[in-house]
């Protein structure tokens, strides 16, 4: 009886803690191999041969094809300036500047990495070459369901979302060592249903 209890303790602890911790390590946004700049997260080595086992597991599980070092670098933002998860019923304003890149796009994904289309069903992106900018080159983009003046990134639906900023042909990829690039900041607007 005592042996059976001990055996069960070993097996249950092993499976539960081992399984949960593996799932958590692959799932979390602050996992191994990620870098944080402000609220933005990036996996510079994702998809590369040098990636750590956790980043590899993450890429394989997602079935994604990350940008290569010669293509660009992508960043993800899933919480506002207070650390609250981004909600599709709220309006957000993203403003400032991006790190140097030949071009960049900003799009919105749901929690399963699928693109969130606008109400009319078409995918919306903010694109660096068709953006209204201030005289100093900075910009602000309004992300929300309801039409807004200026740069408006239209979304639809309910639930969590995250912003994806993809920089193409950028000098800050991979190995160059990310020396505090300037990233745009997010701030909250109104939340209406």
């Amino acid at each position, binding site marked *: 009886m005592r042996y059976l*209890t*001990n055996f069960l*303790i*070993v*097996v*249950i*602890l*092993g*499976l*539960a*803690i*081992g399984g949960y*911790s*593996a*799932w958590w*390590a*692959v799932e979390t946004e602050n996992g191994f191999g990620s870098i944080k700049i402000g609220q933005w997260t990036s996996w510079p080595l994702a*998809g*590369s*041969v040098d*990636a750590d*086992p*956790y980043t*590899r*597991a993450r*890429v*394989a*599980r997602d*079935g*994604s*094809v*990350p*940008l*290569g*070092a*010669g*293509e*660009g670098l992508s960043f993800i933002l899933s919480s506002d300036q207070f650390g609250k998860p981004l909600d599709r019923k709220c309006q957000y304003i993203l403003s400032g500047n991006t790190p140097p890149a*030949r*071009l960049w*796009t900003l*799009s919105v*994904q749901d929690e399963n*990495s*699928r*693109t*969130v*289309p606008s109400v009319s*069903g*078409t*995918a*919306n*992106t903010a*694109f660096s*070459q*068709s953006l209204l900018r201030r005289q100093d080159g900075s910009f602000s983009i309004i992300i929300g369901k309801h039409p807004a003046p200026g740069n408006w990134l239209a979304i639809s639906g309910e639930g969590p979302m995250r912003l*994806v900023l*993809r920089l*193409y*042909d950028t000098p800050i990829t991979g190995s160059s060592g990310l020396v505090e690039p300037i990233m745009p900041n997010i701030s909250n607007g109104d939340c209406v249903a």
Partner: protein
Amino acid sequence: MRFPIYPVIAGLILAGIIHIIIVLLIPSLASKDAWSKLVTAGPQWQFTRLNHNNNDGSSLLTAIDPQFQTASCRFSLQDNPVFIRADGDLPFWSVAVFDRFGDNVYSFNDRTAIDQKLNLLILNSLQMSVLREDPPATVEQSIVVETQITEGFVLVRALQPDPTWATAVNKFFDKAVCEKFAFE
């Protein structure tokens, strides 16, 4: 009953082992990884569009930039090198070579390419030595990538700044070639 200290320690050690095994096994067991999705999407040696006409931003592979049109071609270096060519006046395109497990082996964009034309030859060490003996004129303008992988896929991403570019982007992909390279 006193606290079962040894079983708990053994359980934690087992947890560590299971954690490592799961993380290391995910890449080879994932059934929805990029390769598996591409196998169902189209044959080898042929470009398959991944988000053609998908205005809602959906695509065959997860998290593809909706501002881009993307196509991929699966290849095998078992018998022949793979020769990839495309040409078009597009504002931006980029290419990435992945192995069967979705690891990025090589990537570049149109600025890196000669004449901004996509002309890429992927081969293994053995085929490289054959090529070095007598380089054919057809690969003079090519970016030559030597790799250890046997199976993999090439992913071409072409920027479509707005719908007026759709014709040019479609032409770029229609004329894109992904074929076995034959030494003379």
